[in-house]
């Protein structure tokens, strides 16, 4: 171990190199805020931004393997870093977790991910909700939809109406991960929390083969009939642009789309609406970013890591950061009055612990998740009997 440390460029006491993938303008601003706060707290932020989550994580892992680890690296609050922990490649931040009483302020699904064998290995920073229904108020008006849909059936009805007036009902980017989002929206909103958990968390074969799940899959496929021909390959923001221009009615996407609306000077609640869950008890699917701390014995680096952990969860950092990022704070004790209406809605829902559920990646290994994604995108894009899809999912999620 010591000989490997030799290879690393020694980081002077306070310097902290952080690998992250926040590179777009809005993300940069958010990252800059953290950096600023970190600096204020006495640290020195050395920025290594790498676009693309996979890419950034791969670099972080390789840097660790190459004995030249960063001080901290961004991961998602998912099982992504489980292997690193098992290989003993990460430092824990138990001290900070204890002193800041994470158990109390962080949502349960997130705690379950970052706490491994009783140790805390990551600092979560935000909660993105992936399965928001965004809709264009102008489009809804044009189609004569007065009321915000409050169930999946109403949603389908609204979409039919949109279709009838020549508006593309669902603005969809035809990329596998976006299809997974639609699927999760269906599973959460139609299947409800129980089915969601038994399929995604418990990987219960019975549940997967059940009629209820079949219904979810059929609804998922039905969604596909609401998209336009140009959807395959489209980026999510181009889909959002369709909402902005009124060409399309609804988009199911994470809360980062707010950045697009903002760039087009559209206001939540006025120009577009956001629905976190169609029903009162639809689960709120938590996804988020977190930072992990590669193993090092250098006390000053450990120091820097702990300082970063503190800064990241600092309430004011949390608030300002999440405003910029479009997500909501990870801590439940932040005053959100200054946030936009969608964020406030989200925060409100988060108060209900029973609605807090992790996204699939929190429960599935990256591999299982990927396999699921492959099946779903194939199902979305081709004609596959739903029974076959059920079978495929069952076998993909089997151990």
């Amino acid at each position: 171990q010591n000989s490997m440390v030799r290879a690393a460029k020694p980081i002077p006491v306070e310097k902290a190199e952080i690998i992250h993938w926040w590179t777009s303008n809005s993300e940069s601003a958010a990252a800059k805020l953290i950096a600023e706060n970190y600096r204020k707290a006495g640290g020195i932020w050395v920025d290594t931004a790498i676009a693309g989550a996979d890419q950034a994580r791969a670099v972080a892992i390789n840097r660790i393997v190459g004995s030249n680890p960063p001080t901290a690296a961004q991961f998602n609050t998912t099982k992504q870093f489980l292997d690193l922990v098992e290989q003993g490649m990460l430092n824990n931040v138990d001290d900070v977790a204890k002193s800041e009483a994470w158990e109390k302020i962080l949502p349960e699904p997130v705690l379950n991910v970052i706490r491994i064998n009783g140790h805390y290995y990551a600092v979560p920073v935000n909660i993105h909700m992936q399965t928001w229904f965004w809709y264009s108020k102008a489009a809804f008006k044009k189609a004569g939809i007065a009321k915000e849909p409050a169930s999946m059936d109403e949603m389908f009805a609204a979409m039919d109406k949109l279709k009838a007036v020549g508006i593309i009902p669902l603005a969809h980017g035809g990329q596998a991960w976006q299809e997974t989002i639609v699927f999760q929206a269906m599973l959460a909103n139609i299947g409800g929390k129980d089915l969601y958990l038994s399929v995604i968390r418990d990987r219960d074969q019975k549940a997967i083969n059940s009629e209820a799940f079949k219904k979810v899959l059929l609804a998922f496929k039905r969604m596909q009939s609401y998209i336009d021909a140009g959807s395959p390959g489209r980026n999510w923001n181009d889909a959002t642009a369709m909402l902005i221009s009124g060409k399309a009615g609804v988009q199911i996407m994470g809360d980062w789309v707010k950045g697009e609306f903002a760039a087009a000077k559209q206001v939540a609640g006025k120009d577009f609406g956001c629905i976190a869950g169609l029903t009162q008890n639809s689960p709120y699917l938590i996804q988020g970013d977190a930072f992990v701390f590669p193993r090092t014995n250098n006390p000053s680096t450990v120091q820097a890591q702990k300082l970063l952990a503190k800064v990241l969860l600092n309430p004011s950092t949390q608030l300002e950061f999440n405003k910029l990022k479009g997500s909501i704070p990870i801590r439940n004790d932040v005053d959100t009055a200054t946030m936009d209406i969608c964020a406030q809605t989200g925060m409100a829902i988060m108060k209900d612990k029973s609605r807090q559920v992790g996204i699939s990646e929190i429960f599935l290994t990256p591999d299982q998740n990927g396999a699921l994604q492959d099946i779903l995108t194939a199902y979305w894009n081709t004609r596959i009997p739903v029974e076959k899809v059920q079978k495929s999912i069952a076998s993909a999620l089997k151990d």
Partner: protein
Amino acid sequence: MTVTKAVQHKPKYAKRATRSWTPARLGIYAFLFSAAVFFLLPLYIMLVTSVKSMDEIRMGNIFALPTQFTIEPWIAAWTSACTGIACEGIRSGFMNSLSIAIPSTIIPILLGALNGYALSFWRPRGANVLFGILMVGAFIPVQVMIFPLVRILASIDLYSSLPGIVLVHTVFSMPVMTLLFRNYYSTIPHELFQAARIDGGGFARIFVQLVLPMSTPIIVVAAIMQLTGVWNDYILGLVFAGRDHLPMTVQLNNVINTTTGTRLYNVNMAATILTSLVPLTLYFVSGRWFVRGIAAGAVKG
């Protein structure tokens, strides 16, 4: 009978100077022109996109000329686009890219030429088997080899350093560079090499004074390939160069590539074109090295 008379009488064969517009030549130009249109169409779209505002781009007519021409994206791409917490555009990586690209172009070309030369002319024992393995290796996706290479480089203290990334580029370019030169040298008359050996030329001397000067066309092609490859490389630079040497493409990708952030297509296009200017310059000036008949007059028969 005077010359002019003869020409007047038999106009069947006009002078070559005026012959350039035969149907065949028209066909050639027609083909080249249509090919050029096909090749340029994407560039056209890139260019118009790069001078449109995002609002206009959202409207979605990709072919339309900008209603409001703006140079902003170009300035932004070069000087102020965010690539992390720094918002200094892609220029910050320019020098890094140069410092990687220059040695990573020259060294692999020299090594490739050297290998090709050794393989075609000296044929050391077992070299062909090595070459065979090398060529098979060229089919392995680069990414698969990253992990073991990181290990190896770390063990020799070259990980995350300029020599490290140059070495990595050298490794990954070796099959193609060797192949390029080996096959090129196989077309050079072997007798030249023999003559040089009689003249007392040793391995190095023949290589430098005889073989390299005859290699200019292929060196240019190799330079085109290698410079472009290295210049556009992203993943290797990212993994191996170390944070102080991150190439421009990392900034470029940071500008372009985002999953959940906003995409500024106009800036992306401007940044892409800006980044490609260095290889493009090489392409443009490379013409004079595509010399004709480099071995002309060497051998009879």
